[in-house]
């Protein structure tokens, strides 16, 4: 068990270092950064001043090691656009993205678990097909479009929720619903197939033979086993949701990390772009590590592995 965690942790660190390198190279893709920062109206002299001021005149490897060295201790440098350090900016925006992610995941689980169980218990009936159709439609609807539709219906026509901004808890409801929709199809399918498998297993037959009540069989025995993959995948999904919240944050003008990333891309604020890519990746790595540990803890069969 400890060996497994240690190996996963080592892998995670290695992956994080690779992503760090990729994030650095990514921002150099545009060719000459000094030209992009100085803007279209800049003269050659302006560009040279920018190049010196931002340390872009140093060799690429010097820039790289300077950046990674400081990034390791949480110093991502200064933003070019906001008069603030990148670390500060991200720290300020992170709670919003995490709140959105948690709201989205909770909503997704509240919908997926009952739907998946229902579909599994009524396998191959019209209820099951209806649930499947629902997950497929959910997968097909573009999240930014769903966001706009919700704005029209819930925001304008019914007037029950604010359309954009961050002020109150109500501001997180619509983005949360949209984000939940990105996870509901996968989680519902997983619950359904896990539940079908569990209900067909030997221990359920034993439980039935012992004369246990149906409710007890379903919730005490089958669900416990069906939930193992759902819990671990939910952690992985949260990682994806944090990374994917950029579109939703932008539509709803929620000033989280994703929105920060989008703003910074538009403004060539590349220290921020690098840092946001890295931070989102580290979250994903941490959450998948958590998923693996949870999986091992919840499933005794894996503990010795």
């Amino acid at each position, binding site marked *: 068990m400890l060996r497994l965690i240690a190996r996963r942790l080592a892998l995670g660190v290695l992956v994080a270092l690779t992503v760090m390198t*990729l994030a650095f190279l990514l921002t150099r893709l*545009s060719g000459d950064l000094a030209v992009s920062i100085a803007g279209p109206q800049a003269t050659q002299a302006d560009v040279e001043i920018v190049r010196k001021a931002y340390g872009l005149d140093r060799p690429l490897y010097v820039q790289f090691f300077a950046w990674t060295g400081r990034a390791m201790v949480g110093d991502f440098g200064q933003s070019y656009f906001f008069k603030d350090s990148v670390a500060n900016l991200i720290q300020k925006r992170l709670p919003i993205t995490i709140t959105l992610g948690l709201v989205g995941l909770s909503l997704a689980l509240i919908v997926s678990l009952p739907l998946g169980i229902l579909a599994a218990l009524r396998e191959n009936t019209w209820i099951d097909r209806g649930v499947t159709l629902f997950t497929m439609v959910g997968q097909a609807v573009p999240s930014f479009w769903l966001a706009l*539709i919700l704005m029209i219906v819930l925001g304008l026509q019914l007037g029950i929720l604010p359309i954009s901004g961050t002020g109150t808890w109500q501001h997180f409801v619509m983005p949360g619903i949209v984000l939940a929709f990105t996870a509901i199809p996968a989680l519902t399918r997983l619950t359904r197939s896990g539940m079908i498998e569990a209900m067909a297993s030997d221990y359920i037959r034993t439980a039935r033979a012992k004369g246990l009540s149906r409710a007890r069989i379903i919730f005490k025995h089958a669900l416990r086993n069906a939930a193992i993959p759902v819990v671990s995948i939910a952690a*992985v999904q949260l990682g994806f949701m944090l990374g994917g919240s950029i579109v939703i944050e932008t539509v709803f003008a929620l000033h989280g990390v994703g929105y920060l990333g989008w703003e910074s891309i538009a403004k060539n604020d590349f220290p921020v772009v690098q840092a946001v890519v890295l931070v989102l990746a580290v979250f994903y790595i941490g959450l998948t590590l958590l998923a693996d540990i949870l999986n091992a803890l919840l499933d005794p069969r894996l503990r010795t592995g």
Partner: protein
Amino acid sequence: MSEPIAIQAPQPSTIATSRIGTAGFAIGIAIIALVLAAALIGNWLVPQDPFTQDLGNRLKPPFWMEGSEAGHLLGTDQLGRDYLARLVYGARISLLIGIMTVITSGLIGTTLGVLGGFFGGRVDDLVLFAITTRLSIPVVLVALAVVGLMGSGLGLVVATLGLLLWDRFAVVARATTMQVRNHDYVSAAWCAGASMPHILIKEILPNIASHLAVVATLEMALAILLEAALSFLGLGVPPPLPSWGLMIAEGKDYMFFSPWVIMIPGVALAVLVLGINLVGDGLRNLLGAERLR
């Protein structure tokens, strides 16, 4: 040691079989055929030009609403361009991006997955590492950054998405290759003196192709949705090209008074993606049925 959860391939036994059934498969095929027809001959059938502006005829509603114009079946956009003409032109962009991305990502992912699954050991460790790294990269953000830094364009969007969406191909190719490599016909090919490339391409690949076809439908749907999202955020297909995502972005400012400007391209996107997913589901069921025999 078990593999990280994030990269476990779905086990064939746990892939739940037929729920929507053959009717869904047929509907999916029909939808794709319709969109394909629109993409190929649509702009030849629709008399209007998708790029011609007519500022006197802005934001005309579609035919089922009051105040519609006879010449514009689906109305016009904020610049008076015919919406039907733009919609069928947009089908071309979505399909092109979907197909090209799947070809690119399929090549990358399948190569990595087959090599890892076939050789195992160090090679497989490297492939697993590549997949894990790729999964931890936030796709939308990185795609936005690449397009934002290098300038927008159809080719760049395809290249970016192709380089980002190969993970599921790799995961499935790797898992299925592992199952296939120990079969008798592979040993037979070895004994017959077949070369390594021959075994990989002629023996392994055809036997995992059906699984890869299912992945291809999933990735095509994902690529189409991602392109729409990138274009919606203004960093994908450049205007005036009528990408469906871009049409939604352009209609966004008018959606409270003229909701059809976002309804029409949005429904088109959802229906196309649903069609592709239905076909994928149908293929998966065919595979499942094959396994039971």
